[in-house]
């Protein structure tokens, strides 16, 4: 199942040097630990910097969007086997 969404989520992150690593998210009243960050890429919307985190656990893939201007996280893509 592959779905696209734009849901605000709460994210717990680790800061290591200049890097940010999401470790768990809270979405739909559920808590999802994030054992793997597979790819991080950035983009610009005008002067706003956006980072996308492609993360996964053993059954789910999630793409998270981090808006550096207002410091909000959104879940934008969800894939389950």
């Amino acid at each position: 199942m592959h779905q696209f969404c734009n849901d605000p989520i709460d994210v717990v992150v680790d800061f290591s040097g200049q890097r940010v690593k999401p470790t768990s998210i809270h979405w739909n009243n559920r808590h999802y630990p994030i054992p793997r960050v597979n790819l991080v890429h950035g983009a610009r919307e005008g002067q706003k910097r956006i980072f996308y985190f492609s993360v996964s656990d053993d059954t789910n893939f999630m793409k998270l969007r981090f808006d550096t201007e207002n410091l909000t996280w959104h879940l934008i893509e969800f894939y389950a086997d």
Partner: protein
Amino acid sequence: MDKIIMHIDFNSFFASVEQQANPHLRGKAIAVAGKAGGDLRRSVVTTASREAKARGVKTAMATWEAKKICPELIIVPGDPQKYAMITERLLNVCRKYADNVEQFSTDEVFIDVTLAADNYFGASMLALMIRRDLKATCGSVCTASIGVAPNKLVAKLASESVKPNGLTVVRPHEVEAFVRTRPLADFCGIGRQTEKRLAELGVTSVDTLRTVPRARLIELFKSYGEWLHDASFGQATDVLKDDTLPAKSIGHSYTFPHDLQTLPEVKKNLLAMADKVAWRLRQQKMVAKRITAYVRYGDFGGDGSARLLNVPVSDGLTISQNAWQLLAPQLELERGVRLLGVSVSELQNVALPTSLFRKEQRMQQVVTALDSVQTKFGADAWRRASTLQTSFRERTSGWHYDHLAMANQT
């Protein structure tokens, strides 16, 4: 001193990036096609994963056809920003090891390692270091095939000879023998039409191409015949272009999720597209003198024409009005409009002169103000009321994706 050229080519690029991002897609037949949220049934396969290729899925195949061949195929919508970022990482890795880097396409790059490597053993070591860096920066699933040879032609043939993740080194004394083993279709510069024409002459392999006298090839193909003759022996004088050439044209085309059937729909979409073209023109501080508009119908037939303007333009409304005048007389709506395209060419890098007329001066001021808004808030910061019902999803294909605009944004 002989050159040492390296060609690096990502394997199944878009599909590998998707498999890197989503481990649940690894080992599965996937195809990258279409746009996120779009109708994937009207798309074509942009890239197939190795697993899908093994099942017969090919690039440019219609998705319905691919699904028929491989029912378990997972179709993943493309994400151009992600691919552009990986391309940028590839270029950065290459720049670390060579001064001269030529981006050949979104997933291919030539680098000159003559000085950095010194010899072919050094070049092999550099190739391994590049591979290690790519794994670290792009992930272990994004593999690349690497070819090392004395020129670009043979380096590309070499990288394509072993896939995936190959490393093929062709030293100068091995070139003639190596080239003999490659099919003509693998040569960058021999397209389907040339291959067909050569076949009509009885030339179906490098060996048979070598038997045709150079003078005869020149007689048949003009200067290209000379290139063909040299290529059959692995000789080429191509040089690396380490600079981004200025754009010759700027355009947008779009395949709609359903065929357009009414004039207002076509007109609105043309205007929205022209605005996008105009914004990119102004971003690059250019104006255009030629406007081209084209249409493709549901039956895959099409039409198009171009017009040269007396005064160069850079605003969307003028481009749209001209495009409409070009298209309207030949539009056959009953065939259903599948794709529309607008492009501008004969670009000049000059500022538009200030108009003598008050109305046009005010319009220029408005456009300048809107450009500031777009620079700050992104390309979708404003729209004309008449185009509110139009929406364009991002295109997947790396070849047509606007990496320059992307780079300007980042």
